[in-house]
């Protein structure tokens, strides 16, 4: 075996240019694959972190309250009692937070925009401070009523800074116009498309805007100790809450604001609860991850085909060049199987070295980019859900890339290696070329 390894190694060295070109191509493809997987993993990771802080818990108990059949509001009444019920039913629970939900026009002296308004109790939000990076002002300002947190993109569009006043304008649940003057207390770094339309005000202020009672909220966010329990908890709540006297909406795995059409068309009035998970609430951005995964898969396939053609072609050339050598080896007693193994070893040695090199280089590049906090173009930021490139290198992904490309290279090497092994020694030795 050592001899075969030696022959393969020397043969690769003997054809340095060819080896370098093919090895470089394989390393390049591996690097591209690792980087693409880094982008996808980074997006998923950022999405999970941002979504489960800004827009959703792991599991959410939200719902709609309808004063009349045509007027639905994303409101949960008597939420403290509901939280007690949830604590009783979910031993997997880590912590709970409540978040008001609103949609209002935010008006400055120079412009306006429609925004989602989250009502938060900043002191009770455990993960919020970790995810939201404040650029100007302080999150503590949200302890005071009549204040607002904006993201940089919104502040730029409205041409406001910390301390400036804005007006929130929205109809109450009964359709009566109302406004609320709010002071900007913090401007945070953009979090992709999630920061395009999200703003945060104290819960009390949101209730004032919508003229809601103190025991109302928009949704209860449940954070579990282990996210693997999400489905189990959802199933259990679907069973237990109706038993406790609550009316549930049919399961609809979409963000709450996408359900207004359906809810408004239905004729019921009063309260209905809706149980969703974090993936449902950000289903509208999931397409980005799915599209990127598809592009990664398609690109990997195309690159693999290119490599396969390259490897096969190179081995064909090698076999043609070494036909007489193969004949001689066969004549002095080398078995067919060993000839096959000899060529496969050569392919393995080349592809494994190249993939490992490519993976290491790509991983190093990803880590370098992350450490330098390289700012992504604004269009890309929307999809990345962060303003900096974040390429998450996972050992599993790197090993997958190395194994996939090495195995693919080995598989395409099988045909020329098998043909080389099948040669008759006499024919091979007479070969002129």
């Amino acid at each position, binding site marked *: 075996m050592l001899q075969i390894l030696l022959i393969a190694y020397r043969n690769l060295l003997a054809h340095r240019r060819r080896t370098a070109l093919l090895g470089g191509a394989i390393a390049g493809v591996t690097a591209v694959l690792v980087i693409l997987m880094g982008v996808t993993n980074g997006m998923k990771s950022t999405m999970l972190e941002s979504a489960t802080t800004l827009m959703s818990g792991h599991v959410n108990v939200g719902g709609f309250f309808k004063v*009349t*059949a*045509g*007027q639905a509001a994303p409101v949960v009444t008597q939420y403290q009692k509901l939280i007690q019920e949830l604590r009783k039913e979910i031993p997997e629970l880590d912590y709970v937070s409540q978040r008001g939900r609103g949609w209002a*026009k935010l*008006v400055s002296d120079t*412009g*306006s925009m429609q925004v989602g308004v989250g009502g938060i109790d900043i002191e009770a939000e455990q993960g919020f401070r970790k995810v939201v990076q404040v650029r100007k002002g302080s999150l503590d300002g949200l302890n005071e009523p009549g204040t607002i947190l904006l993201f940089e993109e919104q502040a730029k569009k409205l041409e406001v800074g910390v301390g400036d006043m804005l*007006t929130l*304008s929205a*109809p*109450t649940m*009964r*359709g*009566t*116009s*109302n*406004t*609320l*003057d709010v002071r900007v207390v913090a401007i945070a770094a953009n979090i992709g498309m999630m920061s395009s339309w999200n703003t945060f005000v104290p819960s009390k202020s949101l209730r004032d805007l919508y*003229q809601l009672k103190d025991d109302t909220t928009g949704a209860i966010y449940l954070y579990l100790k282990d996210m693997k329990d999400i489905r189990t908890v959802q199933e259990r709540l679907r069973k237990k809450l109706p038993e406790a006297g609550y009316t549930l909406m049919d399961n609809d795995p979409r963000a709450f604001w996408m359900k207004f*059409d359906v809810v*408004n*068309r239905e004729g019921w009035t009063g309260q209905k609860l809706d149980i969703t998970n974090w993936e449902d609430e950000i289903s509208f951005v999931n397409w980005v991850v799915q599209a990127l995964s598809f592009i990664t898969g398609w690109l990997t396939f195309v690159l693999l085909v290119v490599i396969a053609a390259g490897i096969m072609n190179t081995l064909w050339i090698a076999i043609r060049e070494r036909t007489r050598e193969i004949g001689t080896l066969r004549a002095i007693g080398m078995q067919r199987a060993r000839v096959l193994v000899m060529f496969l070893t050569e392919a393995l040695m080349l592809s494994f070295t190249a993939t490992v090199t490519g993976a290491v280089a790509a991983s190093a590049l990803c880590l370098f980019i992350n450490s330098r906090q390289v700012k992504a173009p604004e269009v890309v930021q929307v999809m990345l859900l962060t303003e900096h490139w974040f390429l998450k290198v996972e050992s599993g992904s790197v090993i997958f890339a190395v194994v996939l490309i090495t195995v693919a290279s080995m598989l395409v090497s099988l045909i020329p290696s098998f043909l080389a092994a099948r040669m008759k020694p006499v024919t091979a030795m007479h070969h002129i070329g």
Partner: protein
Amino acid sequence: MTPRNLLSAAAAAALLVAPAAFALEAADMKKILEVVDDRQRNGGDYKSLVYLEQKEKDKADVVREALVYRRDADDKLMILFTKPKGEAGKGYLRLDKNLWSYDPNVGKWERRTERERIAGTDSRRADFDESRLAEEYDPTYEGEEALGKFQVHKLSLKGRANIDVAYPVIKLWVDKETTNILKRQEFALSGRLMRTLYYPKWQKLFSESKGSDVWYPQEIRIYDEVEKSNSTVILIKSVDLRSLEANIFTKAWLESKSR
């Protein structure tokens, strides 16, 4: 008592009596609102051609043409947009206290709040509908004043407790001579001024169903007071008070016109 004292006493008495002389009794104010409503009320059917000119900051002006159909006896209202091309076929239909909007591009009906903006402009459903000020608001008198060349009653209206209205407080400037509304300001719950409306032109038309004249504003200028640069002008043309088809206020009818 000296003549000077007599004069002072007379002046003081006149000043004390003056507010009572200029103030209106609750019944009088109610009467004004009823007259305002009644002058615009037809009782039968109503059809008009309406142009909505929308101005928004940093956006091109948009002019929409629409047909407004009303059957006040049944509280029915329909607005069918006919121009521009992109808006043609869209419409609103009020049935049994529900306002529905239809978009032929998606072929779906959506239930909307009655107090919603119409087609994203500064106008509301109430701007096209029968006037119901006396039913929905309680008035207080704020005095008599001059509005340009007109002498007007200024009234402050507060929404009644059990009636849902878009604006809980309204200030009205009503022409003393004609009892036409000349100016209207609408306030949010917070007390913030939301819209100012001007009614520079009124026109009358004889209604056979009512047996007398029906007044309608030919032009309504609406200024958004929150986003100061936004405004909408409503021009009401070709008012027709003849009876409409019986089955006109149905989803099917509006859909058929949208095709």
